[in-house]
């Protein structure tokens, strides 16, 4: 099951965490450049999804946080219990959940964009 060493996985964990910090900061700033309630209006939100650089930012947030978050969950679960079956099960479960969340989020981005890539 060990395709990567734990030290390599931790490096990925740290890099995705720091990268997520920057892209999420831009995502939040986009909510604050106009009054918060106005930024949530349907037309404004859809306009964001029609802006290709912003779409790429959203996709990067999705991938970075999914990797960082589900690997974090894997680490917590492996700290609680150790056995070969548990470790393999947790790893598979978190990878599947991560891929499902990325797929669902990407589908939203593509549909909201209206295939304007």
């Amino acid at each position, binding site marked *: 099951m060990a395709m990567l060493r734990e030290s390599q996985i931790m490096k990925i964990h740290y890099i995705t965490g720091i990268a997520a910090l920057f892209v999420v900061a831009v995502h939040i700033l986009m909510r604050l450049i106009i009054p918060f309630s106005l930024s*949530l209006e349907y037309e404004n939100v859809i306009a964001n999804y029609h802006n290709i650089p912003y779409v790429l930012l959203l996709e990067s947030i999705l991938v970075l946080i999914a990797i960082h978050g589900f690997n974090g969950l894997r680490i917590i679960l492996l700290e609680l219990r150790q056995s070969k079956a548990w470790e393999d099960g947790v790893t598979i479960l978190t990878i599947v959940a991560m891929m499902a969340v990325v797929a669902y989020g990407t589908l939203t981005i593509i549909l909201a964009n209206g295939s304007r890539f």
Partner: protein
Amino acid sequence: MEVADRNNREGMKAWLNPGRYGWERASYWLQRLTGVGLLAYFVGHIYETSSLTQGPDAWAAMLELTQTPMGHLILLLVIGMSAYHSANGIRLIFTHGGKGLGKPGRPDYPYDAVSLNYRQKSGIWIALILAATAMLYGASVLFGGE
């Protein structure tokens, strides 16, 4: 002869026990609790925004559910959790890289760990203060009536 139970695993009890290692222990489980909380919010946020694809009415219905005082309080908690998790996470990256741990010393009584020093404690306090500041700013935006 009776076989002694050699299972010393404490499980969740050890994980949640803040009494053993002081602030560092509290920081340890806060990092994990905020991480799980943020992951739950992340999944919920993706589900929330997926209503966009069903048109303006579905989006308005979702906003009615989330843009409430309770929704804003949850968002405020998320702001605090993300500020703490980020700042404490940066401290941990440095710590795992061996920075700020101090030099190894002779283990004299009362055997205080050199690694659990003022640098680490300051990092934890900075993370907590940043979280509180971010929550105050978040409250001014969310409840400020803009």
